[in-house]
Structure formats: C-alpha cells, structure tokens
C-alpha cells in the first residue's frame, strides 16, 4: 500500500496533463508577479539610473569605480547603506531573540492558567493592526513636548519621576532605533507565542510528570525537557523572524519617516526607487537583500525536504 517515495497512490499516477491544468493559473501568475520582477531586478542592477546603459557610465572621475558593478559599490559601501546594514543588524540582534524569548516565556506561562485564550488574544492582537495604525497608537506612548504637559505616556512617567523628557523617536543613534524595534516586538511576539505554544501542547504530559516526580524543579523541566523537545519549532520561529526582520519596512517607513538614522535596507531600496528614481541602485540593494535572505531560504528548503522524506 505504501508508496516508496511521496504519498501519491499508484492508481493516481496516470494523470496525463491534468496536473499542469491545475498548476497553470498559479504558475502563470507567479511567473509574472514574482519571477519576472526578480529577473528584471537582477538585470537592472547592472544598468544606469534610466535602465538603458551599463552602470559603468555612472562612474565619476577620481572616485572609486566598480565598472558594471557600480551600483553594487553604492549598495555595499555607501555611508547611507552602511548605516542601514548596521540598523538592520540591530533589528535582528534585538527583535529576533526578543520576540522568540518573550513568545516562549508567555507561551509557557499562559499554559498554566485558566484564562489562557484571553491572555493569548491580548498578546496576539497587535498582529491584526496595520502598521499605520500601530504608528498612531505608539505616538501616544512616545510623544514628546519640549515644554508644558507631556501627552506621551513614557515622557509623562519620566517627568513625574523627575527626569527630563526625551524625544524618543528622534534621538539617535540608538534610542530612536530601539523605540522602533520595541514596536516591532509588540507586533510580532504574538506570532512567535502562537507557534511555540502549539509546539508546547505537543509535548507529552507524562514526560513532564515523570521528571517532576523524580524531583526536577520547573526550571530544570523547562531547560532539560521542554526546550530540547520543541527546539525544531524554535528554529522555525527564529528563521521566520529573521526573514521578516531582514525585510522589515513598514514600521521604519511609517514611524521613522524622513530620519536617516533609522533607515534599514528595505526602506533604502524604496527611497532610491520612489524618491530618487534611481532604479539601478535600488535594484542592486534589492539583490543584496535577496542574497542576505538566501541562506535562510536554503535552511527552510532543506528542512522541508527532510520533512518530506519522513512522510
């Protein structure tokens, strides 16, 4: 009965051209909307601003020149790009572990209380809010008045405690970035929590009971039993979040608008394209972004193939 490879029963193999009929709409749409733009972008990344001649003609005398890779010189060495790389790195360092660890802690904690569904709904809720909405919401937390009464909660607390108010979203180089990252953590922790919580539910209860009977405390149970068992899921969450954070755009674009100090790779790409109309540089940045995400894509594909081999 069991097919040696894959799960398709032998009787269904005489499909003829039927598979392609089912696949055609999806393949055609993806070819146009995803594959074509990708190829087009790679091509444009070697051309000038107009997309007509080699990027080499944009080289200026006395300046370093990478020839046809000139756009990549900008994408990899320009000051604004180095700043974007640094900020993106900061996002990854803080947001990926931040959402994963918080999500795991919350998942473990709410697992033990009766109001689990309610608590989870509260944590997950920001996922249902648009970035534009979130930026307005957080304005009432970060708002800064140079004089008079503070209308932002954080500064109201700060002044009550006797500190000077801080313009959180414009104080560089760290405070503004961290303020934006906190919004990101607020929005995405629910996602991590939901996945990790579902994985925790899959851990057999007897296993935990046995350990507790043997005298293990909750700390040991968590580290020696729960974490190792759900580690594949933790890896999934970490990789998914890393991709999300590498591509982070909306929060920075809407909340950090106009501030060079908070730019990330995706917003740089957008600015080059839509504000400076420099398709060559924008495309090169896009290719750099894809290359940065590629290793994680590879990990995901490998994981998928391992799963397929097991079914």
């Amino acid at each position: 009965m069991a097919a040696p490879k894959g799960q398709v029963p032998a009787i269904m193999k005489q499909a003829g051209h039927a598979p392609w009929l089912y696949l055609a709409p999806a393949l055609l749409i993806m070819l146009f909307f995803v594959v074509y733009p990708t190829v087009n972008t790679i091509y444009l990344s070697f051309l000038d601003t107009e997309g007509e001649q080699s990027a080499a003609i944009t080289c200026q005398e006395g300046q370093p020149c990478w020839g046809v890779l000139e756009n990549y010189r900008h994408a990899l060495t320009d000051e604004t790009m180095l700043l974007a790389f640094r900020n993106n790195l900061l996002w990854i360092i803080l947001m990926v572990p931040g959402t994963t660890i918080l999500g795991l802690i919350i998942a473990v904690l709410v697992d033990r209380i009766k109001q689990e569904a309610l608590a989870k709904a509260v944590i997950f809720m920001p996922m249902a809010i648009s970035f534009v909405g979130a930026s307005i919401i957080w304005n009432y937390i970060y708002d800064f008045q140079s004089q008079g009464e503070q209308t932002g909660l954080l500064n109201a607390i700060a002044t009550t405690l006797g500190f000077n108010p801080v313009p959180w979203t414009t104080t560089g180089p760290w405070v503004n970035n961290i303020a934006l990252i906190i919004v990101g953590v607020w929005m995405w922790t629910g996602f991590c929590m939901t996945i990790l919580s579902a994985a925790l539910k899959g851990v057999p209860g007897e296993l935990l009971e046995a350990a507790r009977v043997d005298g293990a405390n909750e700390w040991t149970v968590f580290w020696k039993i729960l974490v190792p068992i759900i580690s594949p899921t933790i890896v999934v969450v970490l990789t998914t979040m890393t991709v999300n954070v590498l591509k982070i755009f909306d929060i920075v674009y809407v909340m950090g608008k106009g501030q060079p100090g908070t730019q990330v790779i995706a917003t740089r790409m957008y600015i080059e394209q839509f504000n400076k109309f420099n398709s060559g540089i924008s495309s090169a940045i896009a290719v750099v972004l894809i290359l940065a995400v590629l290793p994680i894509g590879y990990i995901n594909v490998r994981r998928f193939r391992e799963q397929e081999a097991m079914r």
Partner: protein
Amino acid sequence: MNGQNKPALGKFFLYAVVIILCLLWITPTVGLLVTSLRPRQDVVETGWWKAFAPRKAVGQDVYEKHLAPYYGPDGKAVEGVDLSDPELIGQFRRSIALTAFLREQIEKGNLQLEEMPDPQEMADLLTYLRRLSGAESAASRPRFTANNYVDAVVGYSGRANYIESCVEGNPDEDDACLGTGLTSERGMATAFLNSLWVSIPATILPILVASFAAYAFSWLEFKGRQWLFVILVALQIVPLQMTLIPIYRVYAKVGLTGTFLGVWLFHTGFGLPYAIYLMRNFLGSLPKDIFESAYLDGASHWTAFYKLAIPLSVPALASLAIFQFLWIWNDLLVALVFLGGQTPVLTWQISNLVGRFTGMHLLTAAAFISMILPMIVFFGMQRFFVRGLMAGAVKG
C-alpha cells in the same frame, strides 16, 4: 520536594507576571481608544490617562496675570463692573467683543495693560470668564464624545466639528463643510468601502488558485513535482518592494494602474507562495485512502478536487482567508503605488491624514475605524487563525 504551600505562592507569582505582560501589551491600544473618544481640546492639552482627572481651567493663568490685580480673583472688585455677572459675560459672543470691552475699561481707567493678550489668550480668557460667571457650566464640554468618529467618517477638516458647524450651523459659509458627508472622498466611509472592495476579491482569488495548485502538488504525479514545489517555497523570500516597479511599468502599458483588477492580481501573485505552501501541507496530510477509494470508484480528478479536497480543507481555507484578508486590509504600500489617492483605501487615507496635521484627535478615530474589522475577524475566527499558523510553520 512537593511542598504544599509552594504552589499557592507560585500561582500568585504566575498570575502577576501574566497580568503585567498583558497590561503592557494592551496599554498602547487602550490609549488609542481613550484618545479617540476625547474632545479635541483635551487631546491637545493632556495625556489620555488623564481622561478622568480634574481639568485645569482654561484661561485661568491669563485672567490671573492681566485682570485679577484689578477685578479681584472673583471678578467683583470694581464697582459697577461685575465680571461674574452672567448677563454681562453672556453679551460677549466672540472674543473680539471682549477685546473691545477691555479697551473701554482701559479708557475708563479700570484697567491697565502693558499689552493686550493675543487672540488665543483672549479666547481662553473668555472661556474662563464664562465659567467664572456661570454663563456656561463647566460640564458643557463633555469628557467623552463621538465627534472625532463623525468627523473622520465624513472627512471633515474644519476647526470645530462636523455636527456643530455643518449640520446645525450654516454649511454654505464654511469651506470645511463642502464635500463632506458619507460619500466624501476624504472621509473614512468611502475608504472603508474601497478597502472592502480591494480585500475581498484579493482574498478569494489567491486561495482559489492556490487550492488548484496545492491539489496537484499533493495528489497528482508529474515530473519535477518536488523541485517545482521547492522553488515555490523559496519564492516566499522575495521582498515585495522589489517587484513594485517592474509590475508598475507593465501595468502602465496595459492600463492596469489605478484599477482594482491590478491590485487584486498583484495581491494574488504575492499571496500565492505562502498559500500554496500552506494548502499543500494541509491537503498532503489528509488520509490518502479516501482519495484512493474515490479513484477506484471512478471519480475524476475534478470530482476528487471539489467534492473531497475542498470540503475537507475548510479549516485551512478559513485560516488562509483570515491571513490574506488581514494582510491586504492592513497593506499600505501596494495601495499607495497602484491605487493612490484617487481610490483611497483606509490605510492610505490615514497616512494622508498624518501628513495633513488635521489634528491627532481625528487620526485616532480614523485608526480605530480601520481596526474594527480586523479585530472582529481576528476575535471571531481565532481558532482557525491558530490552526493556520500551525499548518504553515510546524507540520504536525
């Protein structure tokens, strides 16, 4: 090792941590909701957490600085001019009348001013005098109001509020009343309908297309099946911003820019990789016996697809639909590039308000209007939501 008093303390600690975390998470949203219901003056003056705190009397500082030395703290110090008399104060309908009155008082020698208060201070002063005299009770400005919502829905951009100046007042004299109403292009009502009209087809279309493809990947045998699927999974990493320009150029040539069809198709293209991935995970995990017996009974692929696969995958379809719907409803970028201001959707309308400095009180109401539907969808279909996340991320 199992002390009997330990669980109680542990339980208390557990609840305390969970409650603190939940409060931290919900506080920003509560702030928005409270702000959206406050009168515009309050929003500017005080933080939302002071919605119930006693208000500082507007104009009190102006009164104390300029008038109190002459008229006394209660306004009765000058004989014959009683500032606490509601009839006298009631005569001043606008602050300009108060200015004239004060000039007169200076001429009479009742009052000496180094400089006249500026118009804003004068208005505040009048407000204070009205309250002092009892011509207007302190309760006249409510702590909470629905005006922000009304103004946001009709796209009112004036200084007062829509109900007062356009419905009860004389609309012809006020620019802000022109073009406002439920069908106003600047209003949230129109944007809400546009958002719906973008989101619903753009949710159904990719799910339909993905279901076909996922069926082929799960239950049909063809050459390159594994590889094609791996490529599709990998395409999830393509950043959306990158594809906007090439697509925009093609759209411009074929006349799809600014059309709903263009947006639907774009969202379909971008929703597909994940939708196929998720549907394939779900369809592939269905027991193969049922498909096998269906074929043995002579069912065609089409019958197996729409009589077996589709009905069985309702949970996955529902969760996918929720995801796709939330994603499109909350999207700004695609709407910005392909629809722009001619057919504004909610997110576009709000971000446009941000740029116009029409006042934060309107923005908060607008933001909340945009959140209502996602919240209903999210809380109403939470079970599916969780299941969808699971199918996509951890194959169980």
